[in-house]
């Protein structure tokens, strides 16, 4: 990534009007250098104020900085400049989801789905929003608030078809407690079996993460065999922005928990242990 940033920086230095600032800003954002990424994006916008992708980049940086309102405004700007911009709809849907405005989130994500019905990330996000709507509707029903049920009713269309998406929510109860974390169960080939992995800017990267991690269980076992250290029980990876903890499951499957770097390592491992138990029960019941 450092080489990439250097290459983009040199290219931008040679030609300050080059659109490469978009790639540079994105690389810096992914590397966690948010202040620099913001500076690059703002300078780019000075030269290209009507470039939708520049506002899109600024929005993603804002999300990483925890500035959801600003991110929403930037994506709104993208939508005005480029009405068919898929990322803007997804981003706005994500911000509204994070703010607990599920009905509004569904509206934007439905628009995104109309723009690209093949986009799996939109389908997943939409499913999650509808599940939340169903939960909210159920809670209201339990309280006997019949009027509120009516208000949410139209938004719950197609909910009856969501049962097959239950695997997405396998770890939701555990991961929704205290802090930002996510859990994913991968099979030996890196395919997602359960859980989700949605980044702060609303991208579902579960398949990408799974593909990169395929074979980790096998490599961990081989490394331990060479060293005579017994079976491996966990792999913890600290990155610039997060902590990712993994544990081996039966049939070379892999369970992964990603948490904010602010979360203590011990707590991350406790969450991992609970997710392992949940996944074992689910797999025994024939979930896989």
């Amino acid at each position, binding site marked *: 990534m450092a080489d990439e940033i250097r290459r983009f920086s040199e290219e931008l230095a040679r030609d300050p009007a080059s659109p490469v600032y978009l790639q540079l800003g994105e690389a810096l954002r*992914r590397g966690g250098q948010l202040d620099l990424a913001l500076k690059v994006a703002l300078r780019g916008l000075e030269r290209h104020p009507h470039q939708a992708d520049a506002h899109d980049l600024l929005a993603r940086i804002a999300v990483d900085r925890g500035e959801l309102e600003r991110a929403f405004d930037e994506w709104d700007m993208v939508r005005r400049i480029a009405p068919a911009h898929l990322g803007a709809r997804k981003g706005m849907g994500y911000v509204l989801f994070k703010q607990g405005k599920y009905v509004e989130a569904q509206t934007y994500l439905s628009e995104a789905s109309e723009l690209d019905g093949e986009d799996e990330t939109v389908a997943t996000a939409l499913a999650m929003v509808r599940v939340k709507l169903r939960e909210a509707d159920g809670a209201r029903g339990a309280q006997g608030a019949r009027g509120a049920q009516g208000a949410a009713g139209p938004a719950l269309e197609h909910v009856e078809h969501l049962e097959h998406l239950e695997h997405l929510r396998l770890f939701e109860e555990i991961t929704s407690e205290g802090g930002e974390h996510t859990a994913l169960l991968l099979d030996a080939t890196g395919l997602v079996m359960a859980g989700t992995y949605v980044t702060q800017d609303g991208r579902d990267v579960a398949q990408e993460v799974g593909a990169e991690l395929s074979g980790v269980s096998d490599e961990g076992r081989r490394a331990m065999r*060479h060293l005579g250290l017994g079976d*491996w029980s966990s792999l913890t*990876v600290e990155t*610039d922005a997060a902590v990712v903890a993994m544990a081996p499951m039966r049939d070379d499957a892999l369970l992964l928990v990603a948490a904010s770097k602010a979360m203590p390592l011990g707590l991350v491992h406790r969450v991992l242990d609970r997710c392992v138990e949940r996944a074992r029960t689910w797999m025994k019941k024939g979930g896989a």
Partner: protein
Amino acid sequence: MKANLTSIISALTRQRGVRGSLLVDETDGVIIDATLHVGMKGPAFAALAASLYRKARLSADAAGLGGVTFLRLRATEGHVCAAGKNEMVLVIIADARANIGLIRMEMLKALERVAI
């Protein structure tokens, strides 16, 4: 340069519970320098450790999590820890009872001193 690397690696191996330390090229898994207890299969393990670290780095990149700063593989009878910089990976093999918090700090400090 070699003396400097060797002294850094040796200092890590003297930490309590550490069985061996290796500096490995992340790209090809070849050992740059190592201090290992007798009987340890250095080259094969170096290749596996580098591959594991590379996988972790690529998946972190795919998830937009930035660079990998530290990796720890825990097993029933010990730990493997790795930290990388400039396509080099510093790897430690330690006993199950080793103080990983302390080793982690020493590894990150050592990595700062490794300059090629």
